C-alpha cells in the first residue's frame, strides 16, 4: 500500500472524528476569537496601536489555537490506547505523519481565514498585498502543522502531554510566528518586496520540518 493511500486513510479518520466531535469548529475557533477580543481589551484601543500590532496578535492567536488543535489530534490517539492499535496496524511512520499533519493544516487554514476576518473587522486593519498574505499563511501553516505533529508524537504517551506539549512547541514555533508576523506587516504596509525574504524563510522552515517529520516520525512513533 502506498504511503499516500495510508496518509489519506489517517487524514480521513482524523477529519471524520473532527466532523463528529466538532471540537475545532465549536471550541477551538471560538477560543481564537475570544483571544483576539481579549487582546483588544488588554491593549486599550484608545491608544490606537491595535491596527499596527494586528499581525503579531493574529499570529499569537493562531499559535495558541493551534496548540489546542495539536493537543486534540493526539488526545484522540490516547483514549483507549488507540495509539497502540495504530502501531500494531503497521502503518508507515511517514504516512501517519503526513496524514495527521495534513488534517491539522486543513483545520488551521479554515481557522486562520475566520480569525483573519475577525482581526480585520475588530482591529480596523486595511488589507493590502493579499497574495503575500495568502502565501505567508500557507507556508506558516504547513510549518506549524509539521512541527506540531512531530512534537506531538515526542510528547505522546507521556501522561502529561496536555501540559508538556505547549512547553516543547513554543520555542520551536517562535521563529515561524516571527517570520509570519513580519511578512504580514510588510504585506499590509504595501511593501511586499520586504516580505518575500520572510516568506522564503517560512517556506524553508516548512520544507525542513516536513522532511524531518517524514524521516523521524517513524522511529519516534515506534519508540514512544
Amino acid at each position: 500500500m502506498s504511503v499516500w493511500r495510508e496518509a489519506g486513510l489517517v487524514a480521513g479518520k482524523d477529519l471524520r472524528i473532527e466532523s463528529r466531535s466538532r471540537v475545532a469548529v465549536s471550541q477551538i475557533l471560538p477560543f481564537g476569537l475570544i483571544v483576539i477580543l481579549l487582546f483588544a481589551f488588554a491593549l486599550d484601543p484608545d491608544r490606537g496601536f491595535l491596527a499596527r500590532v494586528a499581525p503579531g496578535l493574529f499570529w499569537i492567536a493562531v499559535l495558541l489555537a493551534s496548540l489546542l488543535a495539536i493537543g486534540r489530534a493526539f488526545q484522540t490517539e490516547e483514549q483507549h490506547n488507540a495509539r497502540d492499535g495504530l502501531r500494531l496496524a503497521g502503518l508507515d511512520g511517514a504516512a501517519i505523519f503526513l496524514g495527521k499533519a495534513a488534517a491539522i493544516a486543513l483545520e488551521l487554514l479554515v481557522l486562520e481565514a475566520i480569525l483573519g476576518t475577525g482581526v480585520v473587522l475588530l482591529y480596523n486593519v486595511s488589507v493590502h498585498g493579499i497574495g503575500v498574505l495568502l502565501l505567508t499563511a500557507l507556508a506558516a501553516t504547513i510549518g506549524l502543522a509539521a512541527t506540531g505533529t512531530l512534537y506531538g508524537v515526542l510528547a505522546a504517551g507521556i501522561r502529561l502531554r496536555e501540559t508538556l506539549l505547549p512547553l516543547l512547541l513554543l520555542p520551536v514555533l517562535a521563529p515561524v510566528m516571527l517570520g509570519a508576523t513580519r511578512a504580514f506587516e510588510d504585506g499590509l504596509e504595501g511593501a511586499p518586496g520586504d516580505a518575500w525574504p520572510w516568506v522564503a524563510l517560512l517556506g524553508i522552515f516548512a520544507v525542513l520540518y516536513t522532511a524531518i517529520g517524514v524521516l523521524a516520525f517513524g522511529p519516534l512513533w515506534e519508540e514512544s
Partner: protein
Amino acid sequence: MPLVVRLRSAVCLLGRFPALAGVDLDVHAGEILLLAGPNGAGKTTLLRLVAGLVPLYSGEAEVLGADLTLDRRSARRHLALVGHETFCYDDLTVRENLRFVARASGGDGGTVDATIDRLGLGAVADLTHGKLSAGQRRRLALGTALVRDPELLLLDEPHAGLDADGRAVLHEIVAAAPGEGRTVLMASHELDLARALATREIRVDSGRTSLPVGGPA
C-alpha cells in the same frame, strides 16, 4: 514445526520495575498456549512484549521470525492483540473502527460485515464506541483483532466482561484458530474455560515463567 515466539532471559522494565525478570518461552505454530498466574505476575507485560509494544531491556526476543530488538514493525503486521483496552476511537462507530483497522492493516475492509455478524454486534454497528457497554467493547476489541486475519493472536483476559453468548463466540474463534493457521497466546483468570481450549498451559509468576502445568509439552 517453526517457532512463532522465542524468548530467552527476556527482561522488561516498567519504569524501573522488572515486570518481566528473565522469561524463557517457546511458542510453536498452531498452539493454543494459556498463560496463567496471579495478579501482577507479568502476563499483560509478556503479551505486550510479544506484540512489540513494550521494549526489551535485555535478553532475546523473536516473534514470527523477526528480532524485536531490530525490527518490531514486521512482526507486528502479522499479529493482533486484544488487550485490557480496546484501541478504538470513541467518536467512530463500531463499523468505522473495524473498517479503519482492516484498511490500515492493508486489507480492503471486505470482512468487516462478516465480523460484525460473527460477534453479534449487528444491533450496535452504527453506534459510536463511546456509547458501548463494557461487554460490547470487548466484542469490538476481538473484532479489530479478527479483521486483521493475524498469524498470531494475543488475547489478554478475553473472557472478562463477555456474557454467555460472547464466551461461546470466543470459544469458537479460539478453537478454530489452529485450523485457520493461527497460533494463540492467551492470558486468563477463567481457568476452567481457558483450559478447555488450551493445548498447553504455562504458569507466569513474579515476572518468570515456570514449569508447564498439564497439556502436552
